[in-house]
C-alpha cells in the first residue's frame, strides 16, 4: 500500500481493484484452515426448557403408561409411530422414520444429569453444560465440550463453532471456539465494505476479525455487499432481530452448521428452545419437535458425504413429571430422553434400562427414575468419535463420573 495521503478519487480507483482481489482472496473463504484431528463430527444440541422424554419417546408398552398419558392409537398417518413394540415416537418426529429404519436415529431413555430436586431451568442447564456433578461446590467456569477439546491435538479456531445467539456455555473455555449467528446479516454498501477494511487495517486484531466476518457473513446465504439504502438496511436488521425472537431461525443455523462441518469444523453446538411445556403440551411439543426434525433433516442434506462421519446428540436439562398436570402440560421432572442421529451412530434402537412407570418405580413418586448419568453416554460418544481417553473423561471432562460399560453408540 502506498503511504501517500489518500484522495477520494484515488481511493475510488483503487477500490475497484481491491474489490476484485477481495472476492478471490483465499483468506476470505473458510476452507483455508488446516483440518482438525480425525475426521468425525459431533453436533451437540441443547434442548432448553426441559424436554418431556416420556411424551417424545413414549413407553406405550409399559402397563402404567395409558393411565398416565392416555391412549394414542398408532393406526393413522398422524398418530405416534411404533419403534420396537414398546416405545413409540411422537407424531411430530414421523419425518425422521426413514433415519430410524436406516439405523441413523436412536434414543437413550430414563437418563439425566446429576441434578436433583430443585428443578430450576437455570441451574439445570448450568449443570448440563458444565458437566460437573453438582452445584453445591460452585460451578465450573467452562463447559464439558470445551474441556474435551483441550485434550485434542491440532485445534484451530475453526475446529469448533458455537452457533446462534444463545450463550453456549457447553463450548466455552480455554480451547478456541468460533461463534456465528447466521440469522443476523451483515449488509454494507460496497464502498462502506472497503472503507471499513481500511479503517480496521490500523489494528491487526480488528482487521483479522473483519476479514473473517466478511467471509462468514458472505457464506451464510446473503452477500455482505448490498445496494440497499440505509433505511432498508436498518429495516432488515430489525427484521432479523424480530425473527430471532420469534424462533424459526433454526434452519439457517442447521445450514450454517452443515456448511462449516463439511470443511474444517469438527464440533458444533447450538440450542433449540421451546421445551418448557407446562400447559397444552400437545401443541408445544408438536412445534418444538417439528423444528428438531427439520434441523436434523437439514443437517443431513447439508452435510452430504460428511453425514456418515457425524453424530448428533440432543440433550436437555431435565425430563418432566410423568403425570399430566391440570392444564394438560407437565411440570419439571428428573429423568428424560436423549436423541441421537447421524450416519456415524448405531441407531435403530432405544438404549435404556427401563425403570417402569408404576408409582413405586418413580423418582419421588412423580418423575421418571434416572437409571444412568447422561454424561456417561456423552462421554462414550466422545471416546468413540475422537478417541478421548476414559481417564480424561472421568477426571477432566466429567469430573467424578464413572463411565461404566460402553453402550456402543457409534458404529
Amino acid at each position, binding site marked *: 500500500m502506498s503511504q501517500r*495521503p*489518500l484522495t*477520494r478519487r484515488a*481511493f475510488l480507483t483503487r477500490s475497484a481493484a481491491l474489490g476484485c482481489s477481495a472476492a478471490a482472496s483465499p483468506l476470505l473463504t473458510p476452507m483455508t484452515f488446516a483440518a482438525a484431528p480425525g475426521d468425525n463430527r459431533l453436533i451437540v444440541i441443547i434442548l432448553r426448557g426441559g424436554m418431556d422424554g416420556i411424551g417424545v419417546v413414549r413407553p406405550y408398552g409399559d402397563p402404567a403408561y395409558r393411565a398416565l398419558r392416555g391412549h394414542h392409537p398408532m393406526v393413522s398417518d398422524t398418530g405416534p409411530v411404533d419403534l420396537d413394540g414398546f416405545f413409540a415416537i411422537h407424531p411430530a418426529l414421523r419425518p425422521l422414520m426413514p433415519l430410524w429404519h436406516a439405523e441413523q436415529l436412536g434414543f437413550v431413555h430414563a437418563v439425566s444429569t446429576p441434578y436433583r*430436586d430443585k428443578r*430450576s*431451568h*437455570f*441451574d439445570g442447564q*448450568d449443570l448440563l453444560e458444565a458437566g460437573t456433578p453438582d*452445584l*453445591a*461446590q*460452585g*460451578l465450573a*467456569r467452562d463447559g464439558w465440550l470445551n474441556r474435551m477439546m483441550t485434550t485434542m491435538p491440532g485445534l484451530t479456531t475453526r475446529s469448533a463453532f458455537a452457533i446462534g*445467539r444463545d*450463550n453456549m*456455555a457447553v463450548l*466455552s473455555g480455554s480451547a478456541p471456539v*468460533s*461463534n*456465528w*449467528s447466521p440469522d*443476523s446479516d*451483515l*449488509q*454494507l*454498501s460496497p*464502498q*462502506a465494505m472497503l*472503507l*471499513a477494511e*481500511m*479503517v*480496521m487495517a*490500523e*489494528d491487526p*486484531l*480488528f482487521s483479522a*476479525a*473483519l476479514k*473473517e*466476518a466478511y*467471509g*462468514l*457473513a458472505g457464506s451464510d446465504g446473503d452477500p455482505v455487499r448490498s445496494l440497499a439504502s*440505509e*433505511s432498508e*438496511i*436498518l429495516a432488515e*436488521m*430489525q427484521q432479523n*432481530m*424480530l425473527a*430471532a*425472537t420469534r424462533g424459526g431461525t433454526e434452519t439457517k443455523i442447521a445450514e450454517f452448521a452443515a456448511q462449516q462441518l463439511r470443511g474444517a469444523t469438527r464440533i458444533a453446538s447450538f440450542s433449540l428452545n421451546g421445551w418448557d411445556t407446562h400447559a397444552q403440551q400437545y401443541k408445544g411439543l408438536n412445534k418444538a419437535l417439528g423444528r428438531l426434525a427439520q434441523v436434523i433433516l437439514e443437517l443431513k442434506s447439508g452435510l452430504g458425504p460428511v453425514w456418515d462421519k457425524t453424530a448428533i446428540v440432543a440433550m436437555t436439562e431435565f425430563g418432566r413429571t410423568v403425570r399430566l*398436570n*391440570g*392444564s394438560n402440560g407437565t411440570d419439571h421432572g428428573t429423568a428424560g430422553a436423549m436423541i441421537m442421529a447421524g450416519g456415524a451412530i448405531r441407531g435403530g434402537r432405544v438404549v435404556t434400562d427401563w425403570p417402569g412407570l408404576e408409582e413405586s418405580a418413580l423418582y419421588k413418586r412423580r418423575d421418571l427414575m434416572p437409571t444412568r448419568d447422561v454424561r456417561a453416554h456423552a462421554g462414550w460418544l466422545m471416546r468413540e468419535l475422537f478417541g478421548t481417553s476414559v481417564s480424561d473423561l472421568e477426571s477432566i471432562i466429567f469430573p467424578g463420573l464413572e463411565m461404566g460399560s460402553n453402550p456402543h453408540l457409534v458404529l
Partner: protein
Amino acid sequence: MSFDPDLAEIRFGCGLSPVLAPAKSTKAILAALSGPDDMAARFPIESFETFQGRMLERARQSAIRRKDRGSPASRAATKAIRRLNQTARIDAAGWFGQTLMRRTWTEDGFRERLAHFWGDHFTARGKTGVLRRATSPYIEDAIRPHLTGRFEELLIAAVKHPLFLHYLDQQNSVGPNSAVATRRKKNTGLNENLAREVLELHTLGVDGPYTQQDVRQLAELFTGLTFQIRAGFKFNKHFAEPGAETVLGKEYGGDPARLRDVHAALRDLARHPATARHLCWKLAVHFVSDTPTEALVVAMTRRYDDSRGDLMQVYETLLNHPDAWVPAGNIKQPIDFVSSACRALAVAPELIAGFDERALQLNIIQPMGLMGQIWERPEGPDGWPEEDRQWVTPQGIAARLQWAVAVPQVLRPDLPDPRDFVRTALGTRSSAATAFAAKAAESRADGIGLILASPAFQRQ
C-alpha cells in the same frame, strides 16, 4: 504519560460528547465522584425495595394458583403471574434505557463505569419468575451507594443482598447440625457455593491462599444468611451451624450464631493482602489494559493496604499513575460501545423515553446480544470477560459494524456531518484513515457508522 482530558473521558468515563466538556483534571473526576449522584436522580431506576412488591404479589398469586389447579381462581392467578412477568420485563427494558441515558448525559462518567465494574464483580441475576428482572434494582441498592467507601462495606452490602443470596444458592444453605436440619432431616444441607465464590471471585482471588477447608468453614459460618420476600435480608439463626468456624486460621463465631461474626469474617477478608492485590489488578485490567504494568498494580495495592481498602484512594492512585495513560486501551464492552455512541450522538432523553420495549430490544438490547453481551445475563458469577479477544470476534465485529451503520439514524434523526462527527467522537484520537473514511463515505449513515466502528472508537 499523564492526564489527557479526551483520553480521560474515553478511558475512565463514558466517552466524548459534543455537549458536555471533559473533566479538566483527575481531581475534577474524583470530586464529581465524591459529590451527589445526579444521574440516579435524573434517570431513576427502581430500587430493590420497591421491586420486592412485585415478588410479593407474584408469591401471592402463586399460592392461589397452587391451591386448586384448574379452578377459575387458579386460572386467573396464572394470568396475573403472566402479567406480572410481562410488566417486569417491560420495566427492565426501561431501566436499560435509563442506564443508557445516565451514560449519555453524565458529567461524572467514572461513577457509571464503576457501577458497572462493581456490579459485574458482584454479578447476580435472578433464576426464576420476576426475579429474573431484578439485576438493575439490585445494583441500584447494593452496589451504587457503596462505590466510594471502603471495599468491606460494598462486600457486606452485596453478600447480604437477597438477589445475591438467591443467585449463589445461599438462602437454603443449612448447617448440618442446625436446629432446622435436626428437625427436618430431609432436603437440607450445606451449600458451599456462596462461600467458594466469595473467596475465589469477590475477595482473595482464584490463586489466593485458601483451602477447601476454608471454603467449608466459611460456608458453615454463612449459614443463616437468608431472606424473606417481605422483609428482605434476614439472619436466621435456626439455619446456623452451631459452634465456631475457622477461616484462614482465625476463629469466628460460636453459640449463639450472630450476624456480626459473619461481618467480622467479611471485613477480614476485605482487608487481606491477597484481596487487595486481586481487586487492584482487576480494576487495572478493566480500566487500562488486559496486561497492566506491575508498577501500576503494586502502587494501587499499596494504597489499598495502607488505607484499609478505601476505594477513593485506590481510584486516585489509578488515575494519577502514568501507566494508566498508555495509548491503545481495552476494547469497549458492548454496553460501553453503544452508550458511548449515544453520548457522541447526544441522543435526546425524550427520544429514549419514547421508545417502547420493542424499540429498545430491536435497536439496542438485541444487537448488544449479537455483540456478545446479552444484557444482565453473563454466563456465570465471574461476570463478563475482560480479554479483548473475547469481544473482537468475527461475530462481535460484524454486529458492531452493522449496528454502527444502521441504528444511529434512529437515535439521532438529524445525523451530524461525519466530517464533524469524527472530531466529536474521537477528539484527539482521530486517525488519518478514519478521517478519510468519514469524508469518503457515500452517506451520512455510512460515515457515522465507520467512525463508530473504527478501532479508535472501539478502544478505551
